């Protein structure tokens, strides 16, 4: 230790306490093949931005943004469509009351999405299955409500605007899904991992289909029309 110059007045200022194996967890892998982010990454970013800008300019020269006639509160277009990213909700509006399709479902989708990273083990499937339930269950609201209406008409009418069937079905599906992911079918972790992505892609796919239906297949009174009609 003689060749380490000591600045303090004492003999030593620190001591070696011991070794532990491996390298610190939070440090990046020292063996990884690294490059400096300037210019390698920065150049790619500028290139990507430039290409994006060029694509936007070309697209803007070719296609004009829609501008319809002046807003007229007295003249309701039929159908009045929401922006495309809300069309899945508007499509749902066709099946379930507005409180369900416009407030409860989007609110729950956002909340469940936020919780996605916090589920562990086999339960990682639960939020994704519940997301699927959130967009599929409201589509059955009308049918279930009609069933209730056949038995207890006054009760059905009183609870119609709150989307009672959907709420009950969502609670039931949450319980069923909870029980389902606990079953031995999901003991295999690799299987859970595979299913996780497939289920999420299904969820995104259904939303996409609902948006497409709303955009291209819905006409006056939200009736089904073919795009060429």
């Amino acid at each position, binding site marked *: 230790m003689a060749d380490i110059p000591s600045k303090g007045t004492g003999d030593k200022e620190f001591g070696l306490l011991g070794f532990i194996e491996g390298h610190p967890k939070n440090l990046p892998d020292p063996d990884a093949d690294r490059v400096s982010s300037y210019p390698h990454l920065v150049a790619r970013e500028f290139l990507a*931005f430039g290409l994006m800008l060029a694509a936007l300019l070309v697209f803007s020269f070719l296609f004009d943004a829609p501008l319809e006639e002046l807003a007229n509160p007295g003249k309701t277009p039929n159908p009045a469509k929401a922006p495309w990213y809300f069309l899945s909700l508007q499509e749902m509006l066709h099946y379930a009351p507005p409180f369900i399709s416009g407030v409860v479902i989007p609110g729950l989708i956002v909340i469940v999405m936020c919780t996605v990273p916090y589920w562990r083990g086999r339960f990682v499937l639960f939020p994704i299955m519940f997301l699927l339930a959130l967009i599929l269950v409201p589509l059955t609201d009308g049918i279930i409500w009609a069933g209730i209406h056949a038995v207890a008409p006054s009760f059905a009418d009183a609870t119609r605007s709150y989307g009672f069937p959907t709420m009950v079905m969502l609670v039931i599906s949450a319980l069923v899904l909870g029980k389902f992911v606990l079953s031995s079918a999901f003991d295999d972790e690799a299987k859970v991992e595979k299913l996780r992505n497939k289920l999420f892609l299904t969820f995104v796919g259904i939303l996409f289909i609902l948006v497409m239906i709303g955009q291209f297949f819905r006409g006056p009174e939200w009736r089904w029309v073919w795009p060429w009609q």
Partner: protein
Amino acid sequence: MSDEPIERGLWKRIGQAFRTTNASKYLNSTDSEARPSMMSKGFREALRKDIVRSTPWKSVFAGPYPQTPKDNSEIAISSFWLHIHPAFIRRETLKFGVTYGLGGLACGLFMVLAVTGIMEMFYYVPATDHAYKDMVDLQHVVSLGKILRNMHRWSAHAMVVVVSMHMLRVFLQKGYKAPRQLNWVVGVILLCLTMGLSFTGYLLPWDQLALWAVTVGTNMAGSIPFIGSKVRYILLGGPNVDQATLIRFFVLHVVVLPLVISLFMVYHFWRVRKDGFSGGK
């Protein structure tokens, strides 16, 4: 510097300053056989030296002009504009297929939207008797106004698509796993804010499309039991989509939401760096 005595007189001083530059010395050097030209590599080299050693250059750029890998790595640390990046990254993360550049593109689209949006504000008055006329003027009277509006509109749609695809990509690669859980939540909020920005902007042209899309959207809020009509009234500033709604959506679209989304974006990027690799896949 040279040993010449300092000259008196303005023109002589300027001439002397020129003669002491590397570029001038290079051009006037007599030791090479051919007269050095301004197109030569040596001249460019001398000029570059002059520029990077000048006081204004040094005052702008913290480090020297990067020439070695070490200089390159220090740029990411010393430059304000680039310190969002780590000094070094793994070579494999440079591959396009790792991220598809979607997060960066979303940020780029936001910048395009901010610039085109501010330019649109030069021509737009958020009044019900003015807004639509301003849009028509922007399309037919203002030079390149149509391109400006198209750019803003298409970028807005593209941003909703790109942010959604970014979220899908992060999900499929499990980028939300520890320690990045909170950043996923911030990402969900950013997606909601993106849609909020797009939706509030939808009303501003004050055409039939705008009016009725917002009517449909806010009617949903009106369906909340007991407090629905109050919520709708607060959103619209009145019983119907009217002047009060237009100014509300305008302020939300150009001030409140851009400010909020900028803060969340900065936090999102900061967390990416601080949290480190989530080891997904």
